[in-house]
């Protein structure tokens, strides 16, 4: 098999894996948009905040220690314990549920009935608030995230492909874990929305707020529920991305990777987020591989948006988005 073809296959596989990571971020956007029509600008910062909280709990960091020390002249930084990863993840998820409750109580509740743009602006404010709050709560230093996820080249794939093609493909173990986690997450979300009472209520709200309210579904409960789920998805995305680079404030920028995925897959479709992520992942990696070297490289960031725009021209609602039909 020609060498370039083998390389292209390897790039494609890695693109799929990268796409899964993009999809993980995009999922959070989709969940909130689907249930409430809000484009949650704060989703990237939620991933950062969730990861910061996880590491903080895991390492026994005292929240707001800088502030406490500055006000009271103390020198406290850490509790004398380390929390096991699984408990830390559960506690961090709990914090994200509390966060969802507070967002609903202090922001969304007061904006019911307001135009979408107002809700969008509120999430911009929320994003910047959370970034600053996360900084005060956990500090700005880079933190190493270790929840026991495997990293590095998968030797089995390397060996198998080497035996088959004479060239071993590189696939990162972390990406494989991310793909499995994403599959589990999507399956769980589908089962939840199809077969549970709360899931059906969530779908009802997504279809028609007024009709859902008229049959006694609590909009407030649904919003807390959906922001909690989005918070959990943000925690998963934060863990996957944070394991690669450490937890630091640039983590919030992963939201930029989700936007072309949403444009392509549609803002209201969970499968769309996954398929969109895969297409963007493969597309940008293949473009960088084939065309990048001829035009100076570093094409991934802008090419993802070009790809999404091309899809938008032909299908404005995205691949799986709901077609908007408004009758006058």
């Amino acid at each position: 098999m020609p060498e370039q073809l083998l390389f292209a296959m390897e790039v494609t596989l890695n693109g799929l894996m990268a796409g899964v990571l993009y999809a993980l971020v995009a999922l959070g956007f989709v969940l909130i948009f689907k249930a409430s029509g809000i484009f949650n600008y704060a989703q990237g910062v939620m991933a950062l905040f969730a990861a910061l909280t996880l590491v903080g709990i895991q390492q026994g960091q005292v929240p707001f220690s800088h502030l406490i020390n500055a006000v009271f002249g103390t020198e406290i930084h850490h509790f004398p314990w380390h929390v096991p990863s699984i408990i830390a993840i559960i506690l961090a998820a709990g914090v994200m549920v509390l966060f969802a409750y507070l967002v609903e109580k202090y922001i969304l509740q007061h904006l019911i009935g307001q135009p979408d743009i107002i809700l969008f602006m509120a999430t911009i404010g929320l994003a910047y608030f959370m970034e600053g709050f996360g900084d005060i709560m956990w500090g700005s230093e880079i933190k190493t995230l270790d929840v026991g996820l495997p990293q590095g080249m998968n030797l089995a794939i390397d060996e198998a492909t080497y035996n088959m093609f004479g060239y071993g493909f590189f696939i990162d173990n972390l990406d494989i874990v991310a793909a499995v986690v994403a599959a589990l997450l999507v399956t769980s979300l589908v089962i939840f929305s199809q077969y549970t009472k709360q899931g059906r209520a969530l779908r009802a709200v997504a279809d028609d707020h007024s009709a859902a309210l008229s049959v006694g579904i609590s909009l407030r409960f649904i919003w807390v529920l959906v922001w909690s789920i989005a918070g959990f998805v943000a925690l998963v995305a934060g863990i996957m991305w944070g394991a690669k680079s450490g937890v630091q404030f640039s983590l919030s920028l992963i939201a930029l990777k989700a936007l072309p995925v949403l444009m392509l897959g549609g803002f209201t479709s969970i499968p769309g987020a996954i398929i969109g992520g895969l297409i963007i992942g493969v597309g940008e990696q293949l473009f960088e591989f084939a065309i990048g070297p001829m035009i100076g490289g570093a094409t991934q960031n802008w090419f993802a948006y070009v790809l999404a725009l091309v899809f938008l021209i032909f299908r404005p609602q995205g691949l799986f988005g709901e077609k908007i039909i408004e009758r006058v």
Partner: protein
Amino acid sequence: MKYTKLAAASVTALMVATPVLADLVFPSLSYRTGPYAAGGIPYADGFADYFTLLNERDGGIGGVMTSAPECETAYNTEKGVECYEATKGQGALAYNPLSTGITYQLIPKVTADDIPLYTPGYGRTSAANGKVFSHVFNFPANYWNAASLAVNHLKEVSGGDLTGKKIALVYHNSAYGKEPIRTLEELSEKHGFEFTTIPVDHPGQEQKAQWLQIRRERPDFVIMYGWGVMNQVAIQEAANIRFPMENFIGVWWSGGDHDVAPAGDAATGYKAVTFHGVGSDYPVFDDIQKYVVDAGKAAGNGDNIGKAIYNRGVYAAMLLAEAARTAQEIHGTPDITSSMMRDGMEALEITEERMAELGMPGFGPTFTVTCENHGGPGTGAIQQWDAAAGTWSLISDYGPSDMEVIQPLIEEDSAAYAAENNIEPRCN
């Protein structure tokens, strides 16, 4: 009543007779927030802690207290310029913005405002030419020195010959990251190595394509010019594809403790160029611990002491403080202006004896700044990471960079700047 008037007059006379000395102000355009905070925090801490040390231990510089008021730039060029405009009226003596983008914007401003701009190891490399850049100083080394120092080291570990070797540059796709390309191209011609460039877009959170390319092309060595999250991801990706860490060398801005920590043990062996000492085994750090950290006056937690980027902040502050001291001597007054500070920077002399007196023996090179040369000696060493110990170690002596290649490039670039801006060369 008469006595009261007399007392008031006496106090007034005393106040007039004894001039009130304002602080020596060194604004710190820091970034403790945003995607580049991981590097900005230890640098800002080191910079602030050194001036606090001078105040607490020595009563300032020449009897005048110092201050390093911070202005948050978030590594954003526009905010950096705003910070400059907001602080220059506070009696600022010199600026050290820790950003090449901000540096480029400030060069014409500081020249017009007669305030020196100090950019050690970053900024506009050709500003080393003092004949053109009267107010910009980048001693003791610059980006092009770093590229040459890296190549020198790679040549040494290759048995003195790089002919036929492949060297890839992984760089932050910005003005900063592109700085060494020309130098490395020249060095590739001189030494006969094959040179390829691999850009990474801001912020560098995703580098899969770049490292797959490296895996395919199998360069013998990789040089990195990164900053922020790009460094951590690159080191992790290099470990993932099992690129030999000892063949991976970063510029000093890719050589922080926080850059290697997330990759854990896999980062052991990674190297970086440095223009100053590593670790905390210098008397000055004992003093910082005693007078600053233990006294509760540290800018941060005090746990960054000895870390690479913290040390760089301390070193930058020390060189500025020494330049201020020189300015006080030249002009015979402790209360110097920014113009006098510029003179002090241009007459700065760092000797071994002085470094020892400052509690930093051998921490950096000895050098003399002149009107022509604002860039210092351009020397540097190589540091290597040991994850188990959690420390960098110097694995080479401070050596020279290839000024035969670099000096003509400096002359060429600065001449172009002079022509564009109608600058008449000085120092005649």
